[in-house]
């Protein structure tokens, strides 16, 4: 036990240096006025009261929530759906599995640049089909487009869902088949309930991720627009800190974002417990 604990030491050193100390420093900065040029000046709760009156902050928070509300279920359905489709080994399945994982290994910036081209409203291939107008110009469509971008980067969730499906003994399906259950019954009464604990955990993880990881697409593909429709919290934090040099203000926002994320995860955890999913 002690020895295996020692194996975690390098990880904890990294955690402390890269997350712990910056987090504590950030928490301190949240109560200061700091431009990066002069020394931080203690300002009490000023940053937080300013946040409460900042329309753009509320707007980004709402954008983030809307993003999570669309992206999390979408990603879960895509990851779970592809896992169920590609569960059985047959012709082409191994390459299809690799293809499903591939978008997750592409560096985020490269992936985003690809989408800049795909979504281009003038010469992009999606616009050329004529099926989807208003991408990157209409706020609603743009929000959907960003959520859709994330729905293809589901490699890890896909692998976890695949493993969860593989863990269900095939005899349960045979028993159901002999009992006269149709495929739909087997899916809804056996597959999904038995995968539910894993899917619940994936959803929880995805909420945390989706509140943070839309930074790259928003930064590269849409630059927060149109009309602030894709200015999510992480992007607004970044701009406040490194475009407007309001580092204290940005820190305060990070703290709020952290508390907010923790609250969402907690609520979800309680729900999952109540529904006996985990």
């Amino acid at each position, binding site marked *: 036990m002690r020895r295996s604990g020692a194996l975690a030491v390098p990880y904890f050193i990294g955690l402390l240096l890269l997350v712990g100390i910056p987090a504590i420093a950030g928490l301190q900065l949240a109560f200061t006025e700091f431009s990066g040029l002069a020394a931080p000046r203690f300002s009490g709760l000023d940053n937080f009261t300013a946040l409460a009156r900042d329309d753009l902050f509320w707007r980004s928070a709402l954008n983030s929530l809307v993003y999570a509300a669309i992206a999390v279920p979408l990603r879960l359905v895509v990851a779970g759906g592809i896992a169920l489709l590609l569960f059985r080994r047959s012709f082409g399945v191994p390459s299809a599995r690799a293809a499903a994982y591939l978008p997750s290994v592409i560096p985020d910036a490269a992936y985003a640049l690809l989408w800049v081209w795909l979504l281009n409203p003038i010469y992009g291939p999606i616009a050329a089909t004529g099926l989807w107008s208003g991408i990157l110009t209409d706020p609603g469509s743009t929000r959907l487009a960003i959520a859709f971008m994330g729905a293809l980067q589901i490699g890890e969730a896909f692998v976890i869902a695949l493993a969860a499906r593989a863990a269900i*003994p095939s005899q349960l399906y*045979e*028993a159901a088949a*002999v009992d*006269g259950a149709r495929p739909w019954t087997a899916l809804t009464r056996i597959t999904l*309930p038995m995968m539910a604990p894993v899917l619940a955990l994936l959803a929880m993880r995805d909420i945390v991720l989706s509140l943070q990881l839309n930074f790259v697409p928003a930064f590269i593909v849409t630059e927060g627009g149109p009309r602030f429709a894709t200015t999510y919290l992480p992007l607004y934090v970044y701009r406040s800190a490194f475009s407007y040099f309001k580092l204290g203000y940005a820190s305060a926002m990070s703290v709020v974002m952290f508390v907010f994320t923790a609250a969402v995860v907690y609520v979800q955890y309680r729900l999952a417990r109540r529904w006996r999913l985990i």
Partner: protein
Amino acid sequence: MSIVIDGVYRSFSRGRRGEQQVVAALDGVDLEVQDGELLAIVGPSGSGKTTLLRCIAGLEEIDEGFIEIDGTDVTKMLPGKRDVSMVFQDFALYPHMTAGDNIAFGLKAQRKPKGEIGSKVQEVAELLGLEALLDTKPAQLSGGERQRVALARAIVREPAAFLMDEPLSNLDAELRTYSRAEIRMLQRRLEVTTIYVTHDQVEAMTIGDRVAVLRDGRVEQVDHPIALYRTPATAFVASFLGAPPMNLFPAELYAQKKYGSITLGIRPERIAIVSLEDALMRGVARVVEPTGPEGIVHVDVGKNRILVRMPWTHVPKEGSAVGLWFDDNDLYLFDGPDGRSLQ
């Protein structure tokens, strides 16, 4: 409802791509199960008994032949249409459902009315003494209780036939003997045609109205348990049934002139240990194994080892010289090492 299995072949391909071998799991199986009968299918592992059961259930397709249940050809039917229910070796209970939901699953899948489902589940639970456990999940049940839930799930649908795939092999020895008798009583009471697969010859002999011995995908013999024991059709059946197995020796048969090589067999309980003067054969008692009331004596006669089963009170000392005696009428003759009975 009778079951007819006619000329059933089923083969699998094994090994890597390019160097696959075709292995016949079922190599022309013919069997007939009468209405209300319990047919036990027994054989060593790999003999095809579970494959046969899965073919009857529709979980495996067959390459040739046909299967009839209650006069209907079900060969091409989906498992759910065959009106059979199956008890699996590891019970295959749905872990996320309570015992009650597990039992009700088949009825729900068939969209039976709710009231009917409730009353049937209750009825079967009473029959198997599961009333108090209906709200319990499988993980909280003991092995014996799980097995009863699996039985209840099979019974509740009132199918034309039960298919049981080693339903007792996951239970401990004591419970197995008890459950065996329970299944037997239940089956007699419900009078449902049953096919019961086991690798345990004692279980097959005690539970079956008739026993089919399977070997390498073929039926060696089907008969009533005692008949199977007394008049084995092949040397394999003779050696497979009985504990310890029948003593088999290579021998030469002369009837005026030399007939050829045969296999001579005698049951361990049909040999007596007698004084050296009265003996037909002499040997040395190498090992003496107590089994409770009886002992099994391993006697070396020349190069052959002969097993003798006898009352524990009369067993010789290990290492002592012993005389063996048997009645000619107790000898079995088989054609060659693997052959059919010559009697």
